[in-house]
């Protein structure tokens, strides 16, 4: 049986402090990991890979928070659309957050398989 500490997900790099915006922040950072995107391209990309459509107000709340934390940066505007780029700090935070999520996923799947035989 694994120790309790090994099971506990750790997310020390920053996204845990985003509260109810953590979900949107993860989706945005995951999208920007593929390269810079402006608001509408971000919405479409997230909708494609996660099946979630980020509403405009929510998207810009999360973008503003990520920008103020230095996890993304704004690039020069292209015809009134401004692309955003993932920073090194953002990549580190996303990596830590996804590692923690993966640990949760693996634990859940392992337990499901052991006790319910469904995984």
């Amino acid at each position: 049986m694994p120790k309790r500490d090994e099971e506990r997900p750790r997310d020390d790099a920053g996204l845990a402090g985003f509260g109810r915006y953590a979900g949107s922040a993860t989706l945005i950072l995951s999208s920007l990991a593929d390269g810079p995107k402006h608001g509408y391209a971000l919405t479409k990309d997230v909708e494609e890979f996660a099946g979630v459509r980020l509403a405009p107000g929510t998207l810009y709340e999360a973008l503003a928070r990520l920008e103020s934390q230095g996890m993304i940066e704004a690039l020069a505007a292209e015809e009134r659309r401004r692309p955003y780029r993932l920073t090194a700090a953002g990549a580190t935070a996303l990596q830590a957050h996804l590692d923690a999520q993966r640990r949760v996923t693996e634990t859940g799947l392992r337990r499901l398989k052991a006790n319910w035989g469904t995984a």
Partner: protein
Amino acid sequence: MTTPQERAARLLRWYPEAWRHRYGEEFAELLIADIEERPVSSPRAVDVARAGLLARLAVAGLTEPHGAWWPDPARRVQVSLGTLCGALTACLALAAAMWSQLAIAWEWTPPATATAPTMRATLVMSAALLAFLLLIVLAVAPVGYAIARNFNTRLLGPLLVLAAAVSLLAFGAHHFLYQWPGSGGHGEGGTLFPVIPAGLQAFAWSLTYWFSVHWFWLATGLGGWEAAWIAASPVALAAAATAAVTLMRRAELSPRLLAYETRLAVAACAVMGVFLGGCGCWVYVGRSPGLAHAGQIDIAAAVLLALALAAAYQAQRTALRGLHLARS
């Protein structure tokens, strides 16, 4: 039929100017693309309205803003203190309206017939109001000195409005002192049992009679000037509060003074909380008929006071967080 551009511009109005200055163009482009793809979407309208109102609360100093559109923590503290000033002025006006009614009721109550719970509530409210006034003096004096020292023309307008409004309130309240039913005017009979010296309660009642007035008297017992005063005094009070908020936001205040004012604001919120507690006790025990009877207007005042205090509490929390950020 409205174009997507017009609809996007309309949705953008939910946001404050500072936010629009930073994100307006790109956000409008996103909205236009979204509207073209999904012409009708109630969740989109609700989401934009919610996010825009939250950004406006941040500009008002009631929530912590995030992002590059409102970056200076020291400025945030000053904005929050301005909002605190407005909210606490509303608290003071409502508190004065309730306290003066109780104090005047005590003046007409023979000591032997006074009920202990109402008396205790009055004492708590009186002590809290006195402490609140002391805190106001401690807060206003250094801000006044800072304004005099770093005077600029942007302060002239609100200073003149504040001076005019306060002069009108002081003159009017003093002029109508003891002229209201119950405060010793209008030839009422009976024996007075003075509790508060120097007519302080009559002054406070005269100042806030627009709130506690029995509208019956407006039609039957009051003259034209008295009715004009009841109409003018809340306008003057609102003008004074607005001018004080503007001054607080525009004045050049040092970080040390901002920290001092924030600490006083925390104490003022606590003191007003004590007043509200006393007021709640009075409203609860004072429902039986009598001079210190708590009526519908007092219940309404207590609810409004609680709302104003909640706004003040939220503003002082934002100011404290801003101070912490400014220091780090």
